[in-house]
């Protein structure tokens, strides 16, 4: 019930931003811009869903951007500089993401380290590794590997619309979302994971292997960050290890929180998170398109919108609970 209200809230915020932007800039509703927005939203949607899993179990993952950088740089570095076969390189870099997630999960669960510390160190270590391995040089596909890049570059034309086509990344996001929703809402495991986030002690006393679900959430998060890293590099073609994926963890966490995940854990919906990711992209797009907002205050605007959203959410909840008290 509450979840549906939150989704409605972030969806209206998205709608308002879209309407305002289209009123202020004629470019917003062009086919090219919309298609681009969809592609970016899809890529960020994938890593935001990962962040949501960790937040649902009451944790946090600050290393998402660095995992994106590490995986995103390793892939062209392996393929181009070392001539590794695609069939080895792709599973290899995706495996890196999963293994890093496993490390995070075990450090948090077994050694009882704080997730903030573990993944903050991850943020620093993987960024350093990405820069060290590549010698801090730009890596890229150099116009080759068209086959695998078509994974994100394919456009599915829509009959009747000339310039607009559906980007293949949207299909990928839909598949990831569908699998996540299926897992969270339709399997016993998903219910156990949500219960673990809601009250780990009560879940454990209920005979649930809470430790495994916490580890699983970190594996899913870093795994999706790695997968996202691969998609990002396939999309843009080349990357500088020093700044590729910078701040992506914050976009992902912001999208998850906007989409209704509580940092206290136990709450979150995939649909909300995807809408949250879209809102983040539309905001960035709006700042670029609207002339009188200088591009360099981008982060300030995004931060302001999120805090206003959080305040109104909290304010709304207080009004509701006060009314409920009074009616008693």
């Amino acid at each position, binding site marked *: 019930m509450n979840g549906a209200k939150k989704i409605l809230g972030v969806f209206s915020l998205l709608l308002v931003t879209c309407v305002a932007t289209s009123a202020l800039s004629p470019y917003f509703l062009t086919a090219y811009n919309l298609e681009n927005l969809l592609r970016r939203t899809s890529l960020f949607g994938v890593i935001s869903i990962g962040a949501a899993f960790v937040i649902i179990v009451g944790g946090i993952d600050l290393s998402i951007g660095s995992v994106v950088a590490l995986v995103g740089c390793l892939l062209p570095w392996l393929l181009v500089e070392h001539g590794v076969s695609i069939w080895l390189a792709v599973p290899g870099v995706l495996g890196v993401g999963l293994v890093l997630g496993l490390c995070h999960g075990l450090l948090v669960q077994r050694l009882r380290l704080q997730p903030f510390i573990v993944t903050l160190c991850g943020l620093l270590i993987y960024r350093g590794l990405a820069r060290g391995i590549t010698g801090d040089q730009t890596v890229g596909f150099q116009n080759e590997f068209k086959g695998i890049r078509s994974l994100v570059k394919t456009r599915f034309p829509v009959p009747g619309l000339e310039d607009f086509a559906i980007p293949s990344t949207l299909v990928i996001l839909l598949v990831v979302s569908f699998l996540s929703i299926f897992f969270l809402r339709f*399997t*016993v495991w998903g219910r156990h994971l949500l219960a673990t986030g*809601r009250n780990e002690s*009560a879940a454990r*006393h*209920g005979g*649930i292997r809470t430790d495994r679900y916490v580890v699983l959430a970190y594996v899913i998060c870093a795994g999706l960050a790695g997968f996202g890293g691969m998609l990002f590099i396939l999309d843009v073609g080349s990357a500088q290890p020093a700044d590729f994926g910078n701040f992506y963890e914050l976009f992902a966490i912001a999208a998850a929180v906007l989409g209704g995940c509580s940092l206290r854990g136990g709450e979150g919906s995939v649909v909300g998170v995807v809408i949250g990711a879209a809102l983040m992209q539309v905001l960035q797009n709006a700042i670029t398109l609207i002339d009188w907002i200088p591009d360099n205050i981008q982060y300030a605007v995004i931060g302001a919108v999120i805090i206003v959203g959080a305040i109104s959410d909290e304010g709304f909840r207080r009004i509701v609970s006060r009314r409920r008290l009074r009616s008693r």
Partner: protein
Amino acid sequence: MILQARNIVKRFPGVLALDGVDLDVSAGEILAVVGENGAGKSTLMKVLAGDLQPDEGELLLDGVPLRLRSPRDAMLAGISLIHQELSLADNLDVGANILLGREPRSGPFLRRETARVEARAALKAAGLDIDPDVSVAELGMGSRQLVEIAKALSTKARVLIMDEPTSSLTAVEANRLFETIERLRDHGTAIIYISHRLGEIERLADRVEVLRDGSHVGSLVGSEITQDAIVERMVGRGLDRDRGLRSDVEVDVATKTPMLEVHGLRTARFPDISIDLVVHRGEIVAMAGLVGAGRTELLRAIFGIDRPIAGSILVAGEEVRGRHPADAAASGIAFVPEDRKADGLLLEESIGENMTLPSLSVHATGGVLRHRRRERRAAAELIHQMDVRPADRNLVAGGLSGGNQQKVAVGRWVGCEPRVFLLDEPTRGVDVAAKAEIHLLLDRLARGGAAILAASSEMEELLAVSDRVIVMHEGRIAGDLARQEASEAAIMRLATGGDREGATSR
């Protein structure tokens, strides 16, 4: 008389904790206050120390009415309560702890030399010969207790209230504490001493006041103070009340099949004590004992919440493999923890979601795919079976009364059809009607073939609902009483460290 309490009444939601209690204490006297768990001792002490405001009644200090709005008021009036859990900041040194919040200052600056002198004087009065610069972290529990006393003395306390001061002390440390207490009495301090250990009371007390169910039920003075006399006053005359619920159940364990067997179990809290126990099919075993006797630790270890150091657990003759609660649950053990709000329920979620949580895979297709219709049906069935009110599975569990929450906490396991139920204080904080319903429920589960092991601090419950009572004392099983042997006096004697026959050991 320094301090008098007149007709103190204190109500908590659903409970009358103090029902018109009188108490007074004079200078140079050690007054012991005793009673079973829940008799109202702690509540009364909190009233005396300003932690709680009484609903009725008054306090008099030197015959003058006194209103205490906070512990600070009490401190200024010269009344100091030393809590069971010590409240020292172990990152600070001893001197800083003694003078915490009352540091001698000139302007914003601490007057270190004055502080040292004051702290040293207080330590000397408490009989502790250490330097105020020593860090509290380096001290043992006994010395910490004396630092607490020094802290109280430095506030010029004339009335010193001590709640279970020896619960974590060794015998040597306790003896040193007793010497200090006696010396303080001889210097004119009034001391109110609360303990479950009747041997200590026999040694120390000049007078004993006994509480039961929130009322004052007796006094003992001087040579009347013996352990047996105290036990007799604590349990009262109304021994052996109605035991209807289980009276038709065969108690001869020899003819029964063991359902839960615990062999050589050792917990981290009591590493040197090895526990063996058996609960049979259809049997309700109650576990008695004072707070801290190790009942909760034992239940948690059996279920795997805390990893036991050693030992094996068998359900229906088969060993439980693995040490995770999930392994215990898979073997057919259910656990209803003491703190249902923190450990038992997802308070923000619906009754239905709570009811089906442990049994989700039972309802699911292939054990994994959730089957909402079956879950709803199961939840509705359990709500009906447990008689949860209101019987609406969509309501949030946190909105239910304590008794109904407890029914959900028990009911969520019933869907798994467990063979062993472990319950920790199943009726704590539950009103009388719900209590009776939960008792009936336990009876029904046992008659259905489950083995039930329930820790309880309530005598009436222990006697009314059980076939057998296991009494724990300081981590070990002090006695195992069949229904016809179990009486309040026998249980209390074993729980306070005496032996079965009534002659109490020293």
